[in-house]
């Protein structure tokens, strides 16, 4: 099994290899049918090698499982053991599911320097690796990098499927992921409290409580949420064994998932995978409550803005120029 962060391609080629980018764009242009064909093909070809993460109801316990907020430590232990066993059975990979808690007094924030982001998209690939996203880039990614023509601010003019060498002249690059809003429309609209804001400002989803109505997806102004239309497929050698219950564990079919600022890393003192993978240093992460922290310095001294400020979502994700 390959290590998740040591393999050279793991961090994503710079830029995306032409062949692969071409394939991606081609798939998109051909439309939905081809996406599904590819999924079907991939599923068939890798039938044995693939860990289908579909979560069929295997037990009454699973069906009656309570909301995360009502689980006792004992409940969690049993659930985590069951989930670990499921992955083991389906893919042969030993994973460890944990439940890191928010650090008291910390509110996580993210800042991204648009002056130096060059659209290399290594963050996208590193994120996929860390968070157990499927192999095929067109299936599901938490981060979308938009290539926007200079002078444009309307996102309809941007292109998320750009290819070839970056940065291109006359373009700037705008990576977007979950903004972990302080006033999150997704949380407000979830009909069954399956998604909520944690004390450290992270918006999480209880994958075992979500009913899959996708109202949060309709509510999100940043297109940050992803739905498991089919059972997610991930090849065993891509599985990241370091998993957290509320973030990167392998998701069941029919539920919503999203970026959690890699809480399985950040709550134990590490940086998010996207930041570590960024070769330009455009990404800055830290505690918004720390007056001497890097983030607060950026907010105080740089030219900062947030996306769609007018919607009143109060993002914890900032863009700046420096």
């Amino acid at each position: 099994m390959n290590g998740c962060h040591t393999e050279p391609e793991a961090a994503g080629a710079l830029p995306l290899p032409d062949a692969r980018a071409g394939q991606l764009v081609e798939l998109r242009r051909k439309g939905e049918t081809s996406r599904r064909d590819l999924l079907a093909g991939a599923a068939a070809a890798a039938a044995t090698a693939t860990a289908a993460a579909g979560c069929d109801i295997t037990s009454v316990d699973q069906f009656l499982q309570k909301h995360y907020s009502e689980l006792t430590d004992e409940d969690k232990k049993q659930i985590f053991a069951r989930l670990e066993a499921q992955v083991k059975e389906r893919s042969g990979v030993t994973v460890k599911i944990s439940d890191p808690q928010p650090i008291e007094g910390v509110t996580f924030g993210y800042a991204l320097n648009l002056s130096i982001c060059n659209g290399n998209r290594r963050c996208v690939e590193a994120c996929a690796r860390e968070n157990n996203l499927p192999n095929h880039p067109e299936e599901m990614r938490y981060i979308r990098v938009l290539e926007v023509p200079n002078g444009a601010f309307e996102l309809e003019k941007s292109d998320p499927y750009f290819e070839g060498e970056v940065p291109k002249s006359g373009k700037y690059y705008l990576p977007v992921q979950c903004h972990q809003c302080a006033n999150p429309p997704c949380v407000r609209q979830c009909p069954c409290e399956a998604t909520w804001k944690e004390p450290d400002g992270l918006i999480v989803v209880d994958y075992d409580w979500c009913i899959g109505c996708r109202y949060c997806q309709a509510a999100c102004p940043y297109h940050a949420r992803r739905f498991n239309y089919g059972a997610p497929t991930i090849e065993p050698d891509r599985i990241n064994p370091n998993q957290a219950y509320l973030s990167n564990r392998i998701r069941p079919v029919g539920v919503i998932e999203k970026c959690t600022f890699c809480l399985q890393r950040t709550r134990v003192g590490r940086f998010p995978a996207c930041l570590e993978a960024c070769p330009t240093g455009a990404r800055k992460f830290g505690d918004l409550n720390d007056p001497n922290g890097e983030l607060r310095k950026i907010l105080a001294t740089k030219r900062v803005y947030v996306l769609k400020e007018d919607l009143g979502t109060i993002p914890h994700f900032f863009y700046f120029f420096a």
Partner: protein
Amino acid sequence: MIRYVVYWARMVACVLKGGRLYYTWMGSLLVLILLGAWSYSHDVVDGLIRTNMTDEVSWGIGIANFVFCVGLAASALLLIVPAYVYKRHDAKEVVLFGELLAVVAVVLCLLFIITDIGRPERLWHLFPGIGKLNWPSSMLAWDVVVYTGYLVINLHIPGYLLYKQYMRQKPNPYFYLPFVFISMFWAVTHYTVTGFLLSGLGGRPFWASPILAPRFLVSVGCTAPAVLLIILTVVRRHTHFKVQESVFDYLKKVLRFSAPLNLFLLGCELFSQFYSGARTPAAHYLWVGLNGKHGLNPLIWTALVLNLATTLVWITPRFRKNHRVVIATAALTMLGIWLEKGVGLVIPAFIPTPLGEVVEYWPNFGEILVSVGLAALGAFVFTAIAKVTIAIQTGTLAVHGGESTPRLPAAPGSVPGSGFPPASVRTPESEGAA
């Protein structure tokens, strides 16, 4: 208790018995229902990957049909107001059809949602007490509350009145009249909440219009009378139940107001979206196309033409008198509103995505089968309960054996608030082609 079980058994027996036309109709519906169920079973096994929905367009034809069905539920309000507020005898005779249609419409709304969600077996997460209903924060939670309430009220009123009629007892007004008046306010809440469900999302500027709920309310004023015109025509033609001409006049009168008003509000929306030159991407995509993609243009222009043409018919006295024209126009009105306020209201809100990407959506065969199957289920259930209702109201289904000679109607408006009057019955001689 035993009497109640017998009542149900006799109703079922009544549904199972019918003429050739009845069996053909119900049989065809059953085939469509089974096809829909077969298609949906694939969604259950493989997930919604079977549909054409994507992360970009995450609500498709299922939610569009849901929104349209909300409009059908207005049929109850449309007949309750003249029957109970204005005490019109003719409307009171047919008010149960409106209420039962509302029941079917609300059930369809719920089914369109249930077949559209990823984990239907987790629906209990929405039940207060055992689940976690996010009320009053989530508009979808409001929807759940309002729909359930509306369903219960509209099941209670006709259920109680029919049973009393079956038992040959005078209904107690305290048992149903308060609910009749609650249901009027509840109905308005029902449409408003559905409007708010969409317009409450700041990230979807296409929906974030203050006149969305009013537009919604007005367009249900088109679909509900249109569908009632069709249903009551069928009832009049194929059963012994007599529907007075004045009821048709009343429904046409409603359309005479609601159809032009619907166009007016659409015009207001178009003006604010296009006149100033400010860019409204979703509206552009819907009406003229965006970034070279034009998927919904034919659909919305068809809707506009249909709505213009049908409005013209509704406001022209000469056309309104021809019953065939009226029925055809009613069907086209429903189609026009379905295109404009169903598909044309839900899908374009997702195109482009909040990040500006234009991904188009068109339902695939499987999705269409599920939708058709559910529509057939609605028609099936409605036909069944309408048949029972007619049997009870004409006195052929009653506690002491069915009557071969139906009761004659009581004097209209004899006892104020005494439930609905027994239906007028056509004598065999007066029956035409039925």
